[in-house]
């Protein structure tokens, strides 16, 4: 790894640290903006853009249609 690349990576790390240190309300507004951008670049046939369902034990068993007695 060259010194130049080291400097670039270090610069990126500092930038991420500065972002992480921003006030929570500001970071949450950034999430809103990031999601809006993601929706723009990920057209879908559904009105809802969703993520891949996780497979870990901790996230299995989310609320489903049957549990909510929602009409199919």
């Amino acid at each position, binding site marked *: 790894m060259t010194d130049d690349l080291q400097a670039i990576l270090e610069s990126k790390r500092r930038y991420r640290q500065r972002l*992480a240190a921003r006030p929570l309300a500001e970071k*949450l*507004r950034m999430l809103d903006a990031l999601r*809006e951008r993601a929706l723009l670049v990920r057209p879908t046939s559904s009105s*809802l853009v969703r993520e891949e369902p996780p497979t870990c034990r*901790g*996230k299995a068993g*989310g*609320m*489903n249609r049957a549990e909510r007695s929602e009409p199919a």
Partner: protein
Amino acid sequence: MNIQEVIQTITQMQADGIIDTYAIGGAVGATFHLEPVSTLDVDIFVSFRSEPDSLLVSPRSIYDYLTARGCAADGEYLIIAGWPVQFLPPTGPLAEEALAKAVVHDVAGVPARVFSAEHLAAIALQTGRAKDKARLLQFVESGTLDAATFQDILTRHALTGQWAQFQRQFLSDTP
């Protein structure tokens, strides 16, 4: 689209007795500890309140409460303030502990219960998808993890083997 409104709604649901303990997990939870982590949905872990006259717990009251207030349902999500929100029970011991030990953060005057950085990192390790590994790396590189607390969680939840493998794969200079 306003995620602060989602947090306000969840807080109000707790105040109204619809849910007991809750905590924000996933990428939104990680954003409380790291730089903003882009995501498409919100994961809310909840201890579902028992239905009257039933030993079973049910998310029905959440669905009824939110749809009565104009929130739409889409598959396993409820749409709050433009965000798809998924309510998840903590089905494993690690998530149960994360929920019990979640930390309260102040978001512009609204309290938000969020998984600790160490629990989010451990859950990412346990889940093990590519994006979870990337998030775990973010936690490690950010220096936000308390090493003793993290190691304690890994030990108690039998994740030390996975952690060693992760370290070999991503944190070692020599392949």
